[in-house]
């Protein structure tokens, strides 16, 4: 008889599960796609937490358009081949909007499916510039700045603020550093106001960089831009100063690290490095962190604040649009400002968040200070 009892339970469950979609028709479905397991789960899970917390908060206030918000997570492990499955699943589950995906590669693979289904997608973390700049995906938005924005900021800063025209661009041959350097080179050349007098990769971990430093001198550069991380940056800066060259050194957020100042010591003074805008003073940012600590008992992980902001932006857009019609949501995203954990934002026509991005920092008295 035990077996019969069990069968009954299964049957009951099956009925309950089948009944779900009918019941859920009255909710706003927020799909959350990203790496929820596997090696990169630590990039994706904070986004799920953010979506759940935002949904809980909004539901407590009466929901969106009078309906409760339902979070539907879908795992893609940051793998493009799984991302398409996750996207298809979310579309068939009737997601109204989707928060995700996390990795640029997975996002790129999944985008055509959402475009086909006409669903708005917003990523908290996919930084590949082409995702928005190609113009292929009007339904794609993001709350994080794209990879090339740092280089753009660095170039504009060097040319316009510092007034330097001849720029030596160096990198550490790694993906991140070389990407930064290549964008910088492209922006300098496109801008037409400055010239790249030297474009070189240095070998990370080399015994010294005196030959590269001499090459910078010989090139007549007025400023150095460097893409890479702090160990190479501190070595190059120290050797520049040792060779009595005090030209400005502008770099990326791989260098905006306190270890850089510790290692380079007094030679670090005056070095510029860009990094994400400091949002720690924003009330919504504090609220988001507190909510996470209260609910999960720990500090949130990577891309949490961007994901929190994206959830707020998406749900706000549905509320403002007055419906779950994608065209209306997209219009609301582009026209209505919304207060989020990364600042007050709206989106430009390509889908990048305006008001999100990088600031330039300079080492002053042994500390990085944001330049306004």
């Amino acid at each position: 008889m035990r077996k019969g009892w069990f069968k009954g339970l299964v049957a009951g469950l099956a009925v309950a599960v089948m009944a779900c979609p009918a019941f859920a028709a009255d909710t706003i479905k927020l799909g959350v796609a990203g790496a929820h397991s596997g090696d990169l789960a630590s990039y994706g899970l904070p986004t799920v937490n953010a979506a759940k917390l935002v949904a809980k908060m909004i539901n407590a206030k009466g929901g969106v358009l009078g309906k409760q918000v339902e979070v539907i997570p879908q795992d893609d492990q940051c793998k493009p081949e799984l991302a398409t499955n996750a996207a298809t699943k979310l579309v068939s589950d009737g997601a109204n909007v989707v928060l995700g995906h996390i990795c640029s590669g997975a996002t790129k693979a999944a985008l055509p499916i959402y475009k086909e289904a006409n669903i708005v997608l917003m990523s908290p973390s996919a930084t590949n510039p082409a995702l928005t700049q190609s113009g292929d995906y009007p339904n794609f938005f993001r709350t994080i700045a794209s990879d090339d924005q740092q280089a753009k900021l660095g170039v504009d800063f060097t040319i316009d603020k510092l007034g330097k025209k001849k720029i030596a661009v160096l990198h550490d041959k790694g993906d991140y550093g070389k990407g930064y350097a290549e964008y910088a080179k492209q922006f300098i050349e496109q801008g037409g106001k400055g010239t790249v007098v030297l474009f070189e990769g240095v070998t990370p971990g080399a015994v010294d960089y005196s030959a590269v430093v001499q090459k910078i001198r010989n090139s007549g550069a007025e400023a150095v831009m460097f893409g890479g991380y702090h160990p190479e940056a501190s070595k190059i800066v120290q050797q520049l100063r040792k060779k009595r060259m005090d030209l400005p050194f502008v770099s990326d957020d791989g260098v905006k690290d306190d270890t850089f100042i510790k290692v380079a010591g007094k030679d670090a003074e005056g070095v510029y490095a860009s990094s994400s805008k400091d949002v720690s003073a924003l009330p919504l940012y504090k609220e988001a962190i507190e909510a996470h600590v209260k609910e999960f008992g720990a500090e949130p992980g990577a891309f949490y604040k961007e994901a929190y902001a994206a959830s707020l932006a998406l749900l706000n857009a549905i509320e403002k649009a007055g419906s779950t019609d994608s065209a209306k949501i997209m219009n609301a995203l582009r026209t209505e400002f919304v207060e989020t954990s990364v600042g007050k934002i709206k989106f430009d026509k390509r889908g990048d968040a305006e008001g999100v991005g990088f600031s330039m920092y300079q080492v002053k008295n042994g500390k990085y200070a944001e330049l306004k």
Partner: protein
Amino acid sequence: MDWQYFWELFFGGLTRGSIYALIALGYTMVYGIIELINFAHGEVYMMGAFTALIVAGALGIYGFPALAILIIAAVVAVIYCAAYGLTLEKIAYKPLRDAPRLSPLISAIGMSIFLQNYVILAQTSDFMPFPNLVPQPEFLEPIAHIMGASEVLIIVTSAVSMAALTLFIKYTRMGKAMRATAQNRKMAMLLGIDADKVISLTFVIGSSLAAVGGVLIASHVGQVNFAIGFIAGIKAFTAAVLGGIGSIPGAMLGGLVLGWCESFATGYISSDYEDALAFALLVLILIFRPSGILGKAKTQKV
């Protein structure tokens, strides 16, 4: 031709080459005597830099003058690394002396990994700032853009160490014993040379030179980390092979040739290809002189 630029690169290469040569001597001496490639040698160099950092930190608190700190730190580093070299040989290589040649090689790689991890655990895996211990005298200021005081010190110290080593090998009893052991260990032992002592001494000398290199380069670039020994070790090993492994003047020449090659490749071509060109040179030289620039072609004993 821009001679100013040429000399800047020349002296940059000379500095780098001197360091390679100092480390390469350790590889080549050990190889010359027991035909072992001591892969843990780069780590001894790193330990030298770390020891000096700790000593310099401690002395800095008491307000010693920079130059005094440098000398004391270097002496302590040399003693400490010599002890490491000796222990390394006793623990990892001596028990394997009669084993097939691959066994001590694996043992050497094992020691290299062990020492790196030891430093990570006992010290830190972070980059540490190394204080600049070489004061910049006034009279060097006009050439500061070519060579700073620390570079002059590197070149001078390397030259003196190498000259002293050459004299030691040529004119002392122990030096003679080393040469004899290198030529034929069994015969040397038959003639009453204590081969174990000679081998230990070889490790002590090689490690001391690596320690000197470690202190000098750490002071020059201003940072140390547990991994610095790896690249320096690989480059120095390349220098030793380039010059002819087993040959002491070969290691010096190999170090300088490699240093210059990298410096000029960076200066006149591109630093993207710094390593590629350096190793292309190695391949070229080995095609035409398989035993290195100054290496003697050995007849294979059958």
